[in-house]
């Protein structure tokens, strides 16, 4: 445990703790229930992604990106292939672009469902978590039907995707969306509008917009603070500029702008937006060969690129340096969860222990991505 100094007590939350979302250790200085300082200790899942990336070829990096953000592997893949295609100056065919968007948005729903469910669990509600996981399973089924894997897909390749969509995918996907949309109301009735849930999340852990930007907080966490920033809209990549969707931002509905409830609520709204995008994409998807634009040899020219994409957790950036050899000189992943976690100390000092875990849950961190 820690050192006791006067009337302050040091409490170690983690590395093994039910609600640290993985193996994170928080060294919390408390005065009774009130928290005065938090020192996060990372690295319990440091799996040397960047070292591996330097030692394997460009295509072989993709499976490692899967394992970084294991809740949204499609989006991790997407970021890497978008950066690589830009570095190589190639463009994949239309069908591939549509398939990628559909997969990425489906995975965004899956990831948000888990985030929302686990957040309920952090607050103490067990049942919504399982309801959301139940619906997430159906998304995983569709992924499995397409590429054979449930969690880590290695689906998006440079210039293409590993498998074309199955013939009846469209039908299955529409069926799922029709089933899923009414479910959102059920979650809201069960969890969102629960009085206790609102009491626990509204006004708690407010991140003002300027603090959020200074800490590099991005994605739903930044939008929860009222900043309308979405890479899909503001720096469109792939074919996101063709779809109509809103960027939901926090409104401080039950409390202050930028509190835990706003972050939670933005995620819930984003799920609906993703459904919209998928419906549009399914309507317009052209026929074609998904292997058509895949380069035979991947040997990007000397140079470097930094490209960011919108993963469910925020701006997922890849910095890739090539020196003309078959394997990259450097691949750096700018992980959104890493930046989100960094503001924990500033946001949660002065709150109670229960609130710290509520704030941590609302940031939706994935340790695989923080530690890489």
């Amino acid at each position, binding site marked *: 445990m820690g050192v006791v100094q006067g009337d302050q007590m040091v409490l170690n939350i983690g*590395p*093994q*703790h*039910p609600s640290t979302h*993985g*193996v994170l250790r928080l060294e919390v200085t408390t005065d009774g229930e009130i928290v005065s300082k938090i020192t996060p200790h990372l*690295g*319990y*899942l*440091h*799996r*040397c992604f960047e*070292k*591996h990336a330097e*030692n394997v070829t460009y295509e072989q990096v993709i*499976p*490692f990106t899967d*394992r970084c953000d*294991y*809740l949204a592997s499609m989006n991790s893949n997407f970021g890497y292939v978008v950066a690589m295609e830009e570095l190589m100056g190639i463009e994949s065919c239309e069908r591939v672009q549509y398939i990628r968007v559909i997969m990425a948005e489906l995975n965004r729903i899956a990831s948000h469902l*888990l985030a929302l469910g686990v957040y309920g669990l952090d607050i103490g509600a067990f049942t919504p*978590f*399982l*309801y959301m*996981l*139940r619906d997430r*399973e159906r998304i*995983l089924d569709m992924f499995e039907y397409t590429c054979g894997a*449930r*969690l*880590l897909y290695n689906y998006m390749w440079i210039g293409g995707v590993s498998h074309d969509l199955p013939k009846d995918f469209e039908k299955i996907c529409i069926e799922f969306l029709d089933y899923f949309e009414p479910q959102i109301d059920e979650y809201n009735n069960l969890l969102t509008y629960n009085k206790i849930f609102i009491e626990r999340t509204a006004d708690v852990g407010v991140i003002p917009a300027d603090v959020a930007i200074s800490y590099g907080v991005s994605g739903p966490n930044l939008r929860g603070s009222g900043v309308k920033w979405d890479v899909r809209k503001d720096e469109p990549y792939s074919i996101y500029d063709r779809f109509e969707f809103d960027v939901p931002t926090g409104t401080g509905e039950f409390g202050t702008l930028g509190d835990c409830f706003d972050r939670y609520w933005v995620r819930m709204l984003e799920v609906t937006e993703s459904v919209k995008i998928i419906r549009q994409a399914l309507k317009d998807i052209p026929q074609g060969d998904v292997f058509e634009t895949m380069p035979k040899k991947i040997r990007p020219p000397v140079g470097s690129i930094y490209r960011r994409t919108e993963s469910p957790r925020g701006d997922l950036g890849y910095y890739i340096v090539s020196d003309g050899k078959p394997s990259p000189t450097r691949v750096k992943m700018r992980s959104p969860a890493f930046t989100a976690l960094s503001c924990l100390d500033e946001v949660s000092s002065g709150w109670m222990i229960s609130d710290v875990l509520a704030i941590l849950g609302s940031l939706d961190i994935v*340790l*695989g991505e923080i530690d890489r």
Partner: protein
Amino acid sequence: MGVLENKFQDNVVVASLDKILGWARSTSPWYFQFGLACCAIEMMASAASRHDLERIGMMPRSSPRQADVMIVAGTVTMKMALRVKKLYEQMADPKYVISMGSCATSGGPYWQHGYHVLKGVDLVVPVDVYVPGCPPRPEALIEGLLKLQEKIQTERPLTRKLA
């Protein structure tokens, strides 16, 4: 346990008592919520509605003291290895370990250049069942747990062991 363990000669009574104890232990292996990485998500999926680990009597516990099975779900790093060992030591006997996924078994995809990855959790704690896969499907995990239950049933906790 302690007091009674391995104290008795083999006979009919002890054998049937052993059988009852083995039944009880194998029927209620409570697992330790110990998610490390990607595999933890599949472990959660196994416990959730579709696969439902509770069917085979598994209940999650978050304190090591009350758990019987530690499912090492995910990559164990050097920084974590010492903690894994400590948590294992904190569990009360009888305790079992399942190494879930190739990372926990051997380092998995990270075995070659993973300077910070422990090459197999069996370097720090004894493992009863290895479940392969990256990550193993929930079905695979359940199969591993059933194998563990079979193993527990063959144990004879009361019978004195031959030297």
